[in-house]
């Protein structure tokens, strides 16, 4: 399973764009990149998933370069409620065991 490396923490201010980068140098051909968000006292929540290039949904964008050895989660115009821990996961396709391993995550603190 591919290991991921993220910054341990980041600070931002309301209204700013936040970019969190994740390194996954040994990503496999069939692996997808998925980001989860976790608030205190809650289980992680799916944010976005991608395989290559760019993916955008109503919450975030995910940028994946051609070599797929890293990815960047982009949160536009963050608010205080975006303060959370963000996890980058690199996981196998449905042909594999399905289990996903969490790295240390990035604690994002949004300040007023």
């Amino acid at each position, binding site marked *: 399973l591919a290991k991921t490396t993220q910054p341990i923490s980041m600070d931002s201010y309301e209204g700013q764009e936040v970019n969190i980068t994740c390194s996954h140098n040994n990503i496999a051909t069939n692996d*997808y990149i*998925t980001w*989860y968000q976790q608030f205190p*006292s*809650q*289980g*992680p*929540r*799916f944010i976005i*998933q991608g*395989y290559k290039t760019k993916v955008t949904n109503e919450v975030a964008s995910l940028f994946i370069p051609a070599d797929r050895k890293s990815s960047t989660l982009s949160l536009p115009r963050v608010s205080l409620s975006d303060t959370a821990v963000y*996890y980058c*996961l690199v*996981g196998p*396709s*449905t042909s594999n*065991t*399905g*289990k*996903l*391993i*969490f*790295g*240390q*995550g990035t604690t994002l603190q949004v300040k007023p």
Partner: protein
Amino acid sequence: SAVISQKPSRDICQRGTSLTIQCQVDSQVTMMFWYRQQPGQSLTLIATANQGSEATYESGFVIDKFPISRPNLTFSTLTVSNMSPEDSSIYLCSVLITTGANEKLFFGSGTQLSVL
């Protein structure tokens, strides 16, 4: 998507006792997982709960300490046996939902366990 109900949401237990955590899913799922999250830490996978067979445990976790049941495709239990204060953690149930080529994990809200 999937809605996961996990209970109890929290408990305070005495050392040496056991606690069984229940996880109920609103749809049939093949893959269910149990994670542990110690205070201030990331999630650690305990085991994969397989319906109709024994659970598959990760390194550092054993069946005697964390017995798991998976009687059907919507339900699982995790027991934390012979508890010690080191077992104080949040225990999370999750399921893997596959839609085409996309896979997503959905989590319960967790069980916060404190062992005295």
